[in-house]
């Protein structure tokens, strides 16, 4: 046990003395979260929208001028027909179209009910949701003003349609994805690089000649990164909640426990990579490119997996972050408990077992 502690202490020295590692370890997640957070809050101003006004009456003009005055929207043009909507989404950076049907004011005054259609380009779901909410709330303000004047109820029902991404994977869906991405990259890269460094420096041979158990070499290497990743996770969660208004509807303990499982998956993967490569650069490259691309593609936070061709969907089953992403969403957003995520948990645990078995086997036979 004492040997083990000497080793773990040494690993901490390595980490804390290497400025680059520390920067990567803590800088990257903070940067990512801040960048995404910044992007989320900043993109809304001066969004291009298009009005398609069939009615052209007093009420629609008032609503349009309110939209215009809001600072959020920049009204680019007025379309004459429904048919042009899709075209304007595709040809320009129009984010949203508001359609007033014929006789809007007439309906409102005579039947006390009117409809307005809001169509958003939801390929950028965050913006789409936010813009739609703004439009809706502006229309609702107008409705309340009308009620104050007329003293009888009038309702305008916005009918919202999301183009291109009807499921509306949005801001709340994005953060769990970033958590998965960041943890994956950090864990895989740090472990693989730190083990390969020992190989490169020749110290691995010294360790293998010593009576110190090779398995313990690996475990004690993982411990500092496990610890630091948990610290990292907490930072990411605090930033997400405070800065990005992410809810944590489920149990935070379950969330942390599941995250630790995911971190261990990443560490095991890093271990496997360290067995396959000989230089730190190779380890870095494989962890960065090899992890980043599949994680972004197949986790589901950027591109909906359901819309992918079957072969790609099958590939996504082998990406640990896909399962973790589902778990985090379930816990943070839907507030579900362990009963609802046990399958995903089992998959991750299975991956850990498989990865560790392969890498321990490789680690041993490498000596032969």
């Amino acid at each position, binding site marked *: 046990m004492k*040997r083990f502690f*000497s080793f773990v202490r040494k690993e901490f*020295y390595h980490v804390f003395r290497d400025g680059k590692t520390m920067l990567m370890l803590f800088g990257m997640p903070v940067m990512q979260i801040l960048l995404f957070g910044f992007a989320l809050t900043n993109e809304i101003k001066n969004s291009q929208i298009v009005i398609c006004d069939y009615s052209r009456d007093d009420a629609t003009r008032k609503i349009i001028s309110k939209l215009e005055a809001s600072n959020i929207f920049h009204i680019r043009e007025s379309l004459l027909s429904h048919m042009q909507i899709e075209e304007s989404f595709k040809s320009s950076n129009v984010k949203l179209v508001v359609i007033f049907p014929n006789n809007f004011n007439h309906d409102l005054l005579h039947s006390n009910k009117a409809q307005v259609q809001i169509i958003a380009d939801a390929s950028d779901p965050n913006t789409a949701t936010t813009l739609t909410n703004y439009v809706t709330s502006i229309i609702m303000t107008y409705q309340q003003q009308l009620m104050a004047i007329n003293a009888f109820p009038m309702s305008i029902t916005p009918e919202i349609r999301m183009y291109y991404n009807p499921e509306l994977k949005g801001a709340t869906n994005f953060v769990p994805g970033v958590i998965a991405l960041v943890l994956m990259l950090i864990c895989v890269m740090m472990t693989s690089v730190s083990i390969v460094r020992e190989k490169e*420096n*020749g*110290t691995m041979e*010294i360790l293998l*000649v010593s*009576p110190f158990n090779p398995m313990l070499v690996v475990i004690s290497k993982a411990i500092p990164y496990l610890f630091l990743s948990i610290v990292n996770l907490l930072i990411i969660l605090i930033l997400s909640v405070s800065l990005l208004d992410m809810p944590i509807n489920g149990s935070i303990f379950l969330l942390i426990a599941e995250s630790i499982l995911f971190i261990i998956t990443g560490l095991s993967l890093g271990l496997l990579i360290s067995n396959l490569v000989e230089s730190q650069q190779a380890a870095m490259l494989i962890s960065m490119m090899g992890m980043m691309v599949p994680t972004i593609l197949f986790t589901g936070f950027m591109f909906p997996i359901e819309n992918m061709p079957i072969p790609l969907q099958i590939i996504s089953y082998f990406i640990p972050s896909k399962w973790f992403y589902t778990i985090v969403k379930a816990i943070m957003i839907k507030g579900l408990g362990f009963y609802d995520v046990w399958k995903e948990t089992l998959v991750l645990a299975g991956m850990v077992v498989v990865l560790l078995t392969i890498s321990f086997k490789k680690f041993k036979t490498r000596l*032969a």
Partner: protein
Amino acid sequence: MEGTKTGVAENKFLSASEVVIRTDKLTKRFGDFVATNEITFEVYAGEIFGFLGANGAGKTTAMKMLCGLSRPSSGKAVIAGYDIYKDTERIKKKIGYMSQKFSLYEDLTVMENIRFFGGIYGLSNKHLQKKSHELIETLNLQNEANLMVTSLPLGWKQKLAFSVAVMHEPRIVFLDEPTGGVDPITRRQFWDLIYSTADKGITIFVTTHYMDEAEYCDRVSIMVDGVIEALDTPANLKRRYSVASMDEVFYHLARGAKRSVD
């Protein structure tokens, strides 16, 4: 110095003292390539055993098998009384190893390196305390104890690496080209350290490319193309080939090598 040493060696070891390494037709194959071909030799306790050979002759492979870093393809070997196949864990406690890549942690201080390696060999705190003080004193590193290893000159690092490798008082220490890249004076100092360690009864098994270092050994073996071509005291080898230096002995044997020398 050299003469007396060799003389002592002959008296000390050839009169059959304890054997600490005994190999019997030890062989390592990589596919069709036979890196080490049925080598058989003995090394005696307290001896400085030089293990020579041109690059590619198979000496690193042989050494790795003896250290337990590589599994032999066939043959037998007994290290410090333990079988190389069955008792690898016991052997590990009895041997020290210094690789040709310089093998301390550059980003740890001198003291931290000592503590770490003492720690993984399971030295008790008290023992470790005592040992590290002794070590620092012997190497005259009092002022550098808390400096990062990376800031030390290469010669100091090598001496430190050697001292760390024998800190747990092994029966045998394996040195794989320990003095590469340092000046003759530093090499000489390194060999003083080797002598004083051998005097404590620790067997030194050393590979080297420097033939002046071969002269310092009690006995040397010379490997050519995976087999041991000669094994004797430097004096006897020189007599046998009627030459004046180990350099010439080596050249005489190694020029027949078929394997490429890089």
